């Protein structure tokens, strides 16, 4: 039974009490304070969320609690008291006993968190034996039982499995089993679902909450997703730049946030019942009314038509490389080829914004890459403005004038910019190759014009990517994509790598650009909330096929297939 914040009286001693914690790191530029005077308390059986964007210090705080800080970091001030023990000053031996037995932690990227050359069952045994929760004779049985409790099917067989043989979701379950093996009092979960599909995310979070509530455990959930935090936790602590800005019960944080940063964060979280403009901070949103987007022109023939598009890859004889790539076990080992995209058809009208959603391995990225003509199709038809572009080989397409009309914004802003090119040079590249502009001045002028359009200060044009922030790099990528005034822009998860407040700004920018430049969008994403805000129509894919497509409101409001319903149900709903 969980206790909520209201029922905790001032006299109740919290399980974990962090007071005025300050953590400093020694870097090349001197000492940096990653966390400053942070105070947090977690009661018995309580689920607490620590929410913040990158650089907020949320992970560092939890590392300090577990005393597993990097060599360069140390606790400069403050205290950490766990179950009455002064963690900061206790001898290493004592803290090691606490770790795993009384408080444990699970991390992001589950497969990397497991020893790749040791059977998962043995790894669980190691923890059990270390904390004297088992003796060598019954360790195996207890390890199998631990696997069973995290809902891993056929645990006796899975005991002998190596991490590379398991899927991402299963690896995360094993990591949870490791953390809970010795029945600790506190579980710290550091971004445990980042990188996982939304249905897997729901399964993992439900499992964690169920197991911890059943055992009366306290949980700390560290996340950047305010919606996730509010949906699963009792109380929420919001951190910004190393400081705690607000602590409040989950129900309150969405309805009545007090601190301006919390308000900004809350507003920026994509959710039901808001428009794009509502994501922006109130002072900005009020001033700029959204330009009315022109209605998609359904009368003319569609800008892009895809008919029965197929993409097959030859299956590698040795380790099913492709199957690992697509996050699932090889289906039929006898098949000579793997169908990434198995015959899909859709169209995009001029001025329309279409969302392409699905979980990892569904084929959405392959589809968008084929439409971009970066890879060749196996079969099917791709027609752009009436011209069959599917038959033109990918390596020939680059130098054709048609190239100008279809452009792309990439997912990872860091990876998509040449580290040796300045921002200006990156934006100028398409202008010089296909833009028909001659002379450095003409190119520079156009670069500055584009920078202004995407809201990038022109003095940043001469910087290198490593000197720009995530949001700035995203803008450079967008400027480059619209440089040639394309008609169709494909956006492959363009905001996935950005903080939620930056994402709000970039999404609005994309919407405004689309309206003013009259472009069509194909928006590939796994995030249904974002798609709901930006797209007119939605296509849902699964295992290389289209499961459902139609107007956004209809598909997301009244889905007609079980898969779509499962996807929507998996989105964490904050208590509004």
């Amino acid at each position, binding site marked *: 039974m969980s206790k909520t914040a209201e029922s905790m009286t001032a006299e109740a001693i919290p399980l974990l009490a962090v007071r005025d914690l300050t953590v400093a790191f020694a870097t090349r530029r001197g000492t940096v304070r990653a966390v400053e005077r942070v105070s947090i308390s977690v009661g018995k059986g309580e689920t607490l969320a620590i929410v913040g964007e990158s650089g907020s210090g949320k992970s560092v705080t939890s590392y300090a609690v577990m005393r597993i800080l990097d060599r360069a970091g140390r606790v400069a001030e403050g205290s950490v008291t766990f179950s009455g023990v002064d963690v900061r000053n206790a001898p290493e031996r004592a803290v090691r006993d606490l770790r795993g037995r009384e408080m444990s932690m699970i*991390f992001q990227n589950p497969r990397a968190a497991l020893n790749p050359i040791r059977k998962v069952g043995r790894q669980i045994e190691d923890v059990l034996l270390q904390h004297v929760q088992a003796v060598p004779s019954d360790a195996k049985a207890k390890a199998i039982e631990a696997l069973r409790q995290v809902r891993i099917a056929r645990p006796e067989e899975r005991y002998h499995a190596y991490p590379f*043989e398991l899927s991402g979701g299963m690896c995360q379950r094993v990591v949870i089993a490791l953390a809970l093996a010795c029945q600790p009092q506190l579980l710290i979960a550091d971004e445990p679902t980042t990188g996982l599909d939304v249905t897997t995310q729901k399964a993992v979070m439900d499992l964690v909450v169920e197991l911890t509530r059943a055992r009366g455990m306290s949980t700390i959930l560290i996340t950047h997703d305010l919606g996730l935090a509010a949906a699963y936790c009792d109380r929420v602590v919001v951190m910004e730049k190393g400081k705690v800005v607000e602590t409040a019960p989950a129900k309150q944080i969405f309805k009545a946030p007090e601190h301006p940063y919390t308000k900004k964060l809350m507003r920026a979280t994509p959710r039901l019942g808001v428009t794009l403009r509502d994501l922006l901070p109130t002072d900005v949103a009020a001033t700029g009314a959204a330009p009315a987007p022109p209605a998609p022109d359904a009368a003319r023939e569609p800008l892009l038509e895809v008919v029965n598009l197929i993409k097959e890859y030859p299956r590698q004889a040795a380790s099913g490389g492709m199957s690992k790539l697509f996050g699932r076990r090889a289906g039929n080992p006898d098949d000579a080829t793997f169908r990434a995209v198995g015959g899909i058809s859709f169209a995009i009208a001029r001025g329309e914004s279409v969302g392409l959603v699905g979980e990892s391995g569904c084929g959405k990225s392959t589809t968008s890459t084929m439409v971009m003509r970066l890879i060749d199709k196996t079969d099917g038809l791709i027609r752009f403005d009436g011209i069959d572009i599917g038959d033109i080989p990918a390596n020939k397409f680059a130098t054709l004038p048609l190239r100008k009309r279809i452009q792309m914004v990439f997912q990872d802003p860091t990876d998509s910019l040449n580290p040796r090119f300045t921002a200006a040079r990156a934006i100028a590249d398409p202008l010089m190759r296909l833009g028909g502009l001659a002379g450095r001045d003409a190119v520079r002028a156009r670069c500055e014009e584009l920078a202004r359009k995407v809201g990038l200060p022109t003095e940043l044009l001469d910087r290198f990517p490593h000197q720009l922030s995530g949001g700035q790099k995203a803008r450079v990528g967008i400027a480059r994509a619209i440089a040639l005034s394309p008609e169709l822009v494909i956006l492959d998860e363009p905001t996935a790598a950005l903080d939620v407040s930056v994402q709000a700004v970039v999404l609005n920018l994309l919407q405004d650009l689309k309206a003013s430049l009259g472009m069509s969008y194909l928006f590939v994403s796994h995030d249904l909330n974002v798609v709901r805000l930006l797209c007119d129509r939605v296509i849902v894919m699964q295992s290389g096929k289209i499961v459902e497509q139609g107007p956004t409101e209809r598909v997301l409001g009244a889905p007609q297939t079980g898969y779509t319903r499962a996807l929507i149900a998996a989105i964490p709903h904050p208590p509004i």
Partner: protein
Amino acid sequence: MLRQTGKRLITAIPSLIGVIVVTFLLTRVLPGDTAAYFAGPAATPQAIAEVRAKLGLDQPLPKQFVRYVRDLAHGDFGTSLTTGQPVISDIASRLPASAELTLLGLVIAMAIAVPLGILAAVRQGSLIDHACRIVATAGVSLPVFFTGLLLVYAFYFLLGWAPAPLGRLDVFYTPPPQVTGFYLIDSLLARDLALFRACLAPLILPAATLAIFSLAPIARMTRAAMLSVLASDFVRTARANGLAPHRVIVTYAFRNAMLPVVTTLGMVFSFLLGANVLVEKVFAWPGIGSYAVEALIASDYAPVQGFVLTMAVLYVLLNLAIDLLYGVIDPRVRIEA
């Protein structure tokens, strides 16, 4: 497991073919008249013509190659002009000396370098860490023949601890009865401890030279691999779960770090087999390295060809063994997904 071994053996075949082709080409690239080279500097035109006919050097190249491969298959590596013996028997008799030296050097190197690398990584920034890095950088910079000479000067000339670098065994002793060809093992098998000590004494300096030479890359790679593994996510998980330090270091970190180290061993063997030649020259060690060097000076080509071929085949087999070892350690390679 057997299937894996079979598969690995098959991948060694292209390498062997490549080795045979290259050694064949090397002998045909000799400037001037190939027959004259094999006949020797003192040969008459008639003798040269005989050699040409005997070696089939007047035939078209493909036919020569077939003949070459056939000869190899029969163990015919040619005849040495200086010893008058078939090259293959010369090599066979001298191989154990080189093998004993190289193996002892490698064993000493690993016994020092691996623990050094581990300690340096675990106690980063400490004295041991600095010592390791100095050893690694200096070891790579020292020419192996120079190290050998320095050791001779220090331990033979100045201190008198080591015997003169004049060969494998002092003339007063007779070698132990041949079982493996390794004097150390054979003398122990014959239960002759005095002989064992006598065999060990001349072996120490050259083995130490080789050890110092291979210490550097092994220590460097062990340290780098351990550092990388210690910073990995799964070690962080192991620590977060409270596992004892020695368990984390040995079972979790070290075993994973061994993977790149085993891979490096291939490269280390390549350097070691080459350094072997130089060390044998410095210490007048009667192995196949000095055999080849003497043959070179005497312009005797068949032994040189035999030497290159033998070393290459040995190296291919060593790499095969390393591949198999890697497969034993890393289940990802073993298990077909």
